[in-house]
């Protein structure tokens, strides 16, 4: 009996010791990750296909690096990966607010010196954010179900439930959503920032019952329209265009859009950091910018890419001249995204 007791006690101590040592042992294996791989987290659906056709395919051909594409970037997941030291993503496709906030929180690696051709880029990269393109977010609808005058053309109308009854979508994040709410509530595009957060939530409270889905994965902004789950959707000109090419014709109102920058960023502690650097540089090169933006119809940051775009694609580019349109202020979101996000996410569930 005493022998048995000793046996168990010894086993216990041994297992206890191995448990304490486990993080060190298991952690050590990670440094040996192979280097012909790359994980790129991006926005899924037709957008993913376009980015693949425009740039990822040629990247793999050129470098032999295999790119694993993950859908739906999420800053909370980056934070979790950085917090637990278990970083799985290399390159993150970040809309302005997420990119700027991630930079402030220290989630991104600094880019290597001389990675970019600064003369070619219309917007200069920061230490850890590389501008990818400019996008336009706004109202999408199904022209086969809603004729002229039956769909909202601007955010004030998108929030007008009496004139345009029906179910709507919004993104599951405060950036873009709060801007849309304030524009709808009568704030002039030029006076948006600093955002009046309380006023934005008050406006959102009014249409909340008609929001059928707070969309995390961008393809849903279109699929929900296609299946008739919603009548109007907050989506993007590039998304509407690329799904239109794929044969499902939705329409997009250019009367009022939110225009913003998209960044590429390398996650801090990325397992394939070197490949990630190469990838970002590749995506900003003029040929790749031209090929990708031709498909997406977003405004390229490479000056060399602009003349290469077709007439047809130009029609879909974000309109920076229209006074109704608002430009996203990433600096404001850098300071506020984290706190406002938490409030927004709890509010969504309430």
């Amino acid at each position, binding site marked *: 009996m005493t022998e048995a007791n000793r046996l168990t006690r010894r086993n216990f101590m041994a297992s206890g010791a191995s448990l304490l040592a*486990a993080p060190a042992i*298991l952690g050590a294996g990670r440094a040996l990750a192979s280097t012909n791989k790359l994980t790129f987290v991006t926005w899924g659906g037709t957008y993913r296909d376009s980015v693949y056709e425009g740039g990822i395919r040629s990247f793999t051909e050129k470098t032999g690096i295999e790119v694993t594409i993950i*859908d739906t970037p999420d800053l909370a997941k980056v934070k979790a990966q950085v917090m637990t030291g278990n970083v799985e993503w290399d390159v993150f496709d970040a809309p302005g607010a997420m990119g700027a906030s991630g930079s402030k929180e220290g989630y991104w690696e600094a880019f290597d010196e001389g990675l970019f051709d600064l003369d070619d880029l219309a917007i200069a990269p920061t230490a850890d954010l590389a501008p990818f393109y400019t996008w336009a977010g706004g109202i999408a609808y199904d022209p086969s179900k809603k004729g002229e005058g039956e769909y909202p053309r601007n955010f004030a109308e998108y929030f007008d439930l009496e004139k345009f009854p029906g179910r709507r979508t919004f993104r599951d994040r405060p950036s873009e959503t709060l801007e849309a709410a304030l524009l709808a509530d009568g704030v002039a595009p030029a006076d948006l920032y600093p955002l009046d957060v309380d006023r934005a939530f008050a406006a959102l409270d009014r249409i909340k019952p008609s929001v059928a889905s707070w969309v995390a994965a961008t393809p849903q902004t279109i699929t929900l329209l296609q299946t008739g789950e919603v009548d109007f959707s907050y989506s993007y000109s590039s998304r509407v265009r690329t799904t239109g090419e794929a044969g499902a014709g939705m329409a997009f109102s250019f009367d009022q859009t939110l225009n913003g920058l998209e960044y590429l960023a390398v996650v801090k502690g990325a397992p394939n950091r070197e490949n990630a650097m190469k990838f970002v540089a590749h995506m900003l090169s003029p040929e790749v910018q031209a090929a990708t933006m031709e498909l997406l119809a977003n405004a390229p940051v490479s000056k060399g890419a602009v003349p290469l775009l077709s007439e047809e694609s130009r029609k879909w580019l974000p309109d920076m001249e229209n006074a109704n349109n608002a430009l996203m202020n990433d600096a404001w979101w850098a300071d506020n995204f984290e706190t406002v996000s938490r409030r927004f996410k709890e509010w969504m569930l309430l």
Partner: protein
Amino acid sequence: MSDRSIRDPQSRRLQAMGSLLAWAVYIFLLAPIVVVVPMAFGSPNELSFPPSTYSLDLFRQFLSSPAWTGPLLQSAKVASISTVVVLLVGVPAAYGIARFRFPGRGLIMGAMMSPLVIPSIVTALGFYLYFSYLRINGTTLALVLGHVMHTLPYVLVMIVAGIQKLDRNLEFGAQLMGAGRFRMFRTVVLPQLVPSLIGAGLFAFLISFDEVVISWFLSGPTTATLPVKMYSAIRWEISPIIAAVSTLLTGISLVVCLIMVALKKSTPSAG
């Protein structure tokens, strides 16, 4: 009850109503399967029931898309490894629990059985936090460990039941002939347990293969299992491929179910 049915009209009416209600419930229970399976054989371009044309296109799309075959293989891998591990650990434990009385037996058994009643989300959260501390989140190892704990109670229940049906005198006999405890276990107990072992193994495999919540918390982008992929697909895409995947999952459940029924029939003592 048929032999004591009362022949007055009121009770016959009630019985008919009861059957009608029961059939309505059967239909409700079966509706998901009845809808999904034909859809899986429909065309990829329409999401309607019943499909206007039948084909295997959806299965072809499923099996030719790495986004789906990766998780399928991962599920097969996790389920196979977990099944082997849980049998290696669970079968001796079941024998110890079934055949010996020792202090702490109830407590140990309670701990091993607890995943049956603790909500998966709670175990999943525990694994997530603890494996984050161990830095193994997102690995196949984490998934296997989680699934082993999740399937252990089922294996214990089935094997303990199997052992209790065995004739204990054979074990005493072997030990009297001088066989050591482990030799006796290997040569006398295990061979008789084969049907229970197969049953428990299949059960563990199926549970692991179908498990969502724990895998949802523990898997990373490269280690996502089929149910995790399916969960995100239902949540975020509306792809008819899901119908093919559903049919595959239902098919696997059905096969495992039938094998278990057959096993039960082949061992009359277990009937």
